[in-house]
């Protein structure tokens, strides 16, 4: 492992104890022949480079421009995404849920942190933390307010609690003013949060 220095405002004694314990565990697993440290490096590198919200953004942009793909995507997310060679491989049981003028979708995992890694990358800290996990199913509009997002008063809000090995991806509504845009241009508008349901896509001309 490389040398690392941090200046975050964490409790420093607690942090270094954890760091020591993690190193000790890796040493033991390596000495016992369970894992190869280079393979751990490779896992980390793969997460850092191969997955991320750009994968989900391409799927959304494709759905916005290709009605047949959108139909297939809503019927069987994993199968439809599997037909796109340029998107990283997706696991089974991905369910894509569509936002409409009448319904907004939002995804949570109240029990742990289930999240569509292949589409969105590793989840942000807030997604895994108690405030979001506790409130999303009871007061989603309050949660959205924490993101400076508000919905029309009478719009249905549907919260999907990921309690099994199904994974959920929100298909946000295509922003107005994007007629004639290419898939690549549209993908630039698709934010991670818009695919979790805690945000909207960028609007044309807004800073990215």
């Amino acid at each position, binding site marked *: *492992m*490389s040398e*690392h220095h*941090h200046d*975050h405002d964490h409790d420093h004694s607690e942090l270094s104890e954890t760091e020591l314990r*993690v*190193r*000790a*565990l*890796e*040493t*033991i*697993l390596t*000495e*016992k*022949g*369970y*894992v*190869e440290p280079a*393979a*751990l490096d*490779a*896992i*980390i590198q*793969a*997460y850092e480079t191969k*997955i991320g919200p750009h994968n989900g953004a391409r799927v959304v942009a494709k759905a916005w421009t290709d009605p047949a793909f959108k139909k297939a995507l809503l019927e069987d997310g994993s199968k439809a995404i599997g037909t796109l060679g340029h998107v990283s*491989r997706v*696991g*089974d*049981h991905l369910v894509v849920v569509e936002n409409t003028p009448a319904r907004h979708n939002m995804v*949570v995992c*109240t*029990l*742990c942190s289930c999240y569509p890694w*292949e589409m969105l990358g*590793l989840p*942000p*800290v*807030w997604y895994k*933390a*108690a*405030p*979001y*996990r*506790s*409130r999303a*199913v*009871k007061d*989603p509009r309050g949660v959205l307010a*924490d993101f400076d997002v508000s919905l029309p008063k*009478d719009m*249905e809000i*549907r*919260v999907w609690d*990921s*309690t*099994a*090995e*199904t994974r959920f991806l929100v298909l946000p509504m295509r922003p107005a003013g994007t007629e004639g845009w290419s898939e690549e241009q549209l993908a630039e508008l698709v934010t991670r949060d818009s695919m979790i349901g805690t945000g909207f896509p960028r609007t044309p001309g807004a800073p990215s």
Partner: protein
Amino acid sequence: MNGVHDMGGMDGFGKVEPEPNEPMFHEEWESRVLAMVRAMGAAGAFNIDTSRFYRETIPPHVYLSSSYYKKWFLGLEEMLIEKGYLTREEVAAGHAMQPAKALKHGKFDLTQVERIMVRGKFARPAPAPAKFNIGDRVRAKNIHPATHTRLPRYVRGHVGVVELNHGCHVFPDSAAMELGENPQWLYTVVFEGRDLWGEDGDPTLKVSIDAFEPYLDPT
């Protein structure tokens, strides 16, 4: 188990605080923990449900005061000790002292990395026809197992509607306890917000869970 991990509907945790330009890892050790969990799971030391159960059994005050990857670390260390892959003496010494226990899928080396970047498959052949149809009204059972379950407390006893049938999947309640895969039908069941949270609840809210057939009764 009725643990503190089962957070749906709890109050008092405060605002959601998104971090602008959040890094993938805040400390390097977090990435090592992630990699060790993925590697040892892929090597066959445990399944995903068992690893979740070990995180749930972290004492509540520790669970609530630990970061996400700290919980992963605590769960991993305890699980590997209890499953016989290492000993407390080794953990205290920081070195291997005992012979290794054989891993079901062997050592996790570089050739294994590619296969773990896609999620495992959890669908299984159906042992019996599905009991419920799309549109059926079902009641989430009022059960309180002390072991692992994926039926959150906030829906127990409430009536919802079957919206999707995902086929038969590995049953986490069995798999977590290493009692076999025991495949069960899995449904998306949707509840009215006011049925869950009372008259003061958001009238526009619907909440769904994915529920295994043993969690549900017909109404």
